[in-house]
């Protein structure tokens, strides 16, 4: 049976020069803004700390959504509990700080490696079968982690662990977190781009379309899936250790809730699953929307309803997400075309 499709993106296409140029220009502008933002205190004045905070949050979600996209977008394996690694990273960073005095900024890469290791182990077990079992396992994993951390006295159980505050000048206290998160987010996007343009990415896309055919073509689907999953585990772990420190406390309910998982998924999907720019766009959008809606309506159950409703609407009517839909209509502006 012949199965072919209009591609929703062609990563190896050589982009026309205008696209590449506008994309590079946009990238440079973003980079400049990121670098200069911390220095803009005199310009912004009062709201500086708030701006730092919200941008840091956005950068964190960019990391989470982009890394989710590696397994959920490129490989098509929906992981509904990827924030489990976020939490593992948070706890690793926080616990090492409390018990050993090591700064989470230094241990973040270690957290990342640990997250990756857990990802590999879980992947080895759960990626032996096709989709459904994997998805179920990711949910179970999240709930397992939630249960374990809720009852683990070493890390404070359900009450969590309080982390010592860094003793930097109050004016600049947000900046290191911002920088660390910015680096992580940058790393995620670069990784996403690299994967998309690599043999790994090609293989993942193939198995997302039709795993049987991909296997028949000689692609080692299991290895590719595990790599993607491990990568998607490493970055949230790094982000998590920074985030825990930022919050100055660790608690299972901060990391291991389904709504965080839902947000990650939603961001990647709204932006455009399987694209590089999509999750970034989705993350920025949703963080903005959340800020506005919390300011207007206050946080409540309706938030969950709205998240779910948006997910449904996007799935039914805009399954390719913003970037994907624009691209399929050939209307994707150059600066958003990062593939």
């Amino acid at each position: 049976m012949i199965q072919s499709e209009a591609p929703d993106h062609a990563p190896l296409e050589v982009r026309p020069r205008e696209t590449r140029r506008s994309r590079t220009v946009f990238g440079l502008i973003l980079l400049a803004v990121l670098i200069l933002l911390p220095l803009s205190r005199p310009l912004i004045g009062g709201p500086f700390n708030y701006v730092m905070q919200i941008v840091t949050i956005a950068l964190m979600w960019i990391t989470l959504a982009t890394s989710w996209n590696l397994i959920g977008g490129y490989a098509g394996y929906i992981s509904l509990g990827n924030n489990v690694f976020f939490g593992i990273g948070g706890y690793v960073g926080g616990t090492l700080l409390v018990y050993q005095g090591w700064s989470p900024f230094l241990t973040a890469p270690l957290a990342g490696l640990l997250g990756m290791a857990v990802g590999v182990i879980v992947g080895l077990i759960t990626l032996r079968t096709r989709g459904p079992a994997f998805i179920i396992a990711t949910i179970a994993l999240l709930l397992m982690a939630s249960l374990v951390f809720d009852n683990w006295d070493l890390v404070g159980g359900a009450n969590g662990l309080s982390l010592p505050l860094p003793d930097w000048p109050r004016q600049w206290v947000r900046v290191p977190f911002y920088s660390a998160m910015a680096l992580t987010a940058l790393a995620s996007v670069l990784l996403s781009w690299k994967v998309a343009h690599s043999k790994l990415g090609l293989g993942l896309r193939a198995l997302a379309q039709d795993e049987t055919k991909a296997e028949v073509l000689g692609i080692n689907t299991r290895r590719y899936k595990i790599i993607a999953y491990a990568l998607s585990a490493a970055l949230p772990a790094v982000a998590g250790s920074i985030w825990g420190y930022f919050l100055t406390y660790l608690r299972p309910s901060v990391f291991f809730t389904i709504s965080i998982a839902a947000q990650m998924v939603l961001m990647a999907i709204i932006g455009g699953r399987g694209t590089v720019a999509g999750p970034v766009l989705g993350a920025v959008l949703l963080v903005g929307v959340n800020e506005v809606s919390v300011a207007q309506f206050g946080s409540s159950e309706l938030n969950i309803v709205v998240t779910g409703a948006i997910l449904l609407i996007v799935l039914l009517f805009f399954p390719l997400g913003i970037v994907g839909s624009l691209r399929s209509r050939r209307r994707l502006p150059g600066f958003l075309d990062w593939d």
Partner: protein
Amino acid sequence: MLLHVDQVTAGYRSGPDILQGLSLDIEENRTYCIIGPNGAGKSTLLKVIGGLLTARSGSIRFRDEEVTGLRPDQLLGRGVCFVPQDPSLFPKMTVRQNLVMGAFLEDDKSVVRSRIEEAFGLFPVLAEKANQAAGTLSGGQQQMLLMGRALMIKPTMMMIDEPSLGLAPQAADQIFETIAGLSDLGITTLLVEQSVERGLNVSDWAFVLDLGQKRFEGPSDEILEDPRIGELYMGKAPRIE
């Protein structure tokens, strides 16, 4: 004219057109064979006629009734039956249960029972294995079960996609003997077959497809002898002088 296919285009999901304006006519009570290189659209054509795939344009008329876009169960009601290429048995059901499922649209139980007996008559090996799970049969036996099941509904027209695929030569021979006998039962047969010689040997008329269109048609024995077609579509090795 039993079946009239008129300028049909069709493809899979959002992909390109596999069938590109294909037309052909089928007369009653003959056996037809469709041949052509890979990708020509042979299986796609059967799927479109059989309702498993919707045509994007064009029309299909069966007994002078517009049947484009009808579902398989609706086509079955009109006597059109399809034996696809992929194994389509119910592996956990017994041979007998599979046959019963073949007559799914038939409500009269006694009719169903008598037809099962007929199927057993045609394929004695099925009678032997009547209570065995279909998934445990050999390739050839499974193919026989598929045909037996297709016959349960007493079809007017039967479409068979690559019946000999994956079968040992002896099993394939048996299948083709059965196919040859279908017109005696009053069934018009539309066959897609990769093993060109076999296919042309059991059929009266052949359609040669390429790139989603019908290129040639003619009596099977003539097509078999035509050297031009032989080189282009049957992959006969060029002779080294």
